[in-house]
């Protein structure tokens, strides 16, 4: 029980500490209509443009990349439904683009956190043949 209490206090301290860092580091003003939203839990604003779909937001690229030919669905604002005018231009999206856009709006729903370890590597997306979860020779690992 004392271990649990210690863990709780450590976590609470870290939350306050990190929230404080977030405020003190707020050198960037939120511009336009888009609010900061982080549903995938990587710490970065989900609405940040990633034109070429390589996982690195445009603002961290050396030069503005060309749109990815097959998966450059316009993200726009995931809360566009709440605004009078949506910035998303709608002209004949392909099935791939349309699905990518729809899936983006429900990325917080695509998994639940009942597996405590699923959050640990969230977003890394590196395949590993060594990952466990199966039984071999009578042993589950």
């Amino acid at each position, binding site marked *: 029980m004392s271990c649990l209490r210690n863990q709780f206090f450590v976590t609470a301290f870290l939350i306050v500490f990190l929230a404080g860092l*977030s405020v003190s580091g707020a050198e960037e003003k939120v511009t336009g209509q888009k609010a900061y939203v982080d549903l995938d839990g990587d710490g970065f604003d989900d609405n940040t443009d990633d034109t070429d779909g390589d996982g690195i937001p445009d603002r961290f690229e050396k030069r503005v990349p060309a749109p990815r030919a097959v998966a450059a669905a316009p993200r726009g604002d995931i809360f566009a439904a709440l605004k009078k005018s949506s910035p998303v231009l709608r002209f004949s999206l392909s099935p791939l683009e349309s699905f990518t856009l729809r899936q983006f709006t429900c990325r917080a729903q695509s998994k639940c956190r009942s597996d405590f370890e699923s959050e640990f590597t969230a977003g890394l997306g590196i395949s590993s043949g060594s990952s466990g979860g199966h039984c071999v020779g009578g042993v589950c690992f």
Partner: protein
Amino acid sequence: MRIVLLFTQLLLCISSSSADSFDAEFTTTGGFIGNIVKDSATLEDNYSTNSLTSNLYVGDGALFSFTASHTYYVFNPGLSNLLLKSGMTLVPTDDSSRWTVFWSANRRIISFQEEDTEVSTSDVGSTDYDVLTSVGYKVSGSASVRFGHSFFSTDYANKQVRNNNRNEWFAGGNMTVLGRASVDLEIGYSKGEYYFAPETRLHPIVQIDTTYPIKPGDEYSVLESGDLKSVYISPRLSGKVGRTTGYSLTYSYREFIDRNDRAVVYGHTTGAISPWASSYEGSAVSLSVKSYRFTGFIITTGAGYWDKRYLKTMERQVDSATGLQSPLLSTRFAKPRQDYQRRLFLGLQRPIGSPSGRIIEPSLRIDYTSNSSSIGVYDYTDFSISTGLDFKF
């Protein structure tokens, strides 16, 4: 041969589809794993994994996905395995709607190389199913809620082993605080049938313990069934520190409801397949950091701590004089199992895009795990390192 045919079929599927309704990903990974089965014996190996996923998009909100993945272990070839996965995902709601509905179903078959060798362990393969339905609602410009249900099932090739079925219900919310941090809270309830050896089972007439010893071949027939229920709560704080670094701090706590203290599951050394040996309650805290500090690279690192209390676990006794394991199994040898686990990881990705829209991504990953347990066989460390190359086209 089976693998070659499957990969050929997937490649044919790729070539026959138009670019606006199809994409694919090929990943090849190789590395060293310091402890394959996560125990004190520390079985290490080199491995390589080749994986091909093809995605077919239909209409506005449907995806059909197929994956074939083969893992080869150099020094333990019997553990080499083939994973086949097929799945469907539906997102029927328009992206401009306040409501979002997500539905997915997947089937996953894993078969091990041992099935084709003289070492007859054809019973260790399994087929997994999962179905997830969830609904989200955007409350305001920076807040949303969600709720859903998921179902998991594992069907073992060895028909003596009962299916592992589990239902979960969850609800959560996400909101922005202080303009550049996000708080996410999720709660859930899980319920599934499980099979356990009762700690003691007295014969109705002669009143002797009939679970001692468990005779060879009776490992599964002595099991009784019950409900394994648990609840969990998991808050998460994420946000940015500076311009190029994001963090995510997650706390989780799970507790069994009406835990049966007489329930014993087969442990690692018994040789019996035991789907519920990995079920635990307890708490966990993890911190992940993602950085774009170096142009063109994605750096992800993290540390985590887990306090896990498992179901009472039975192992084979070891004779202190000879060092040999006892051939007898008995619930009398069952002990409470509590593990404390610490993990660190570092990941490095370098996506390289081409003008045609294809992406090649080399990656490096390093993992370290240290686990200490109240049962000696689960005291272990693991150091793993792998490199990968991912092609998205």
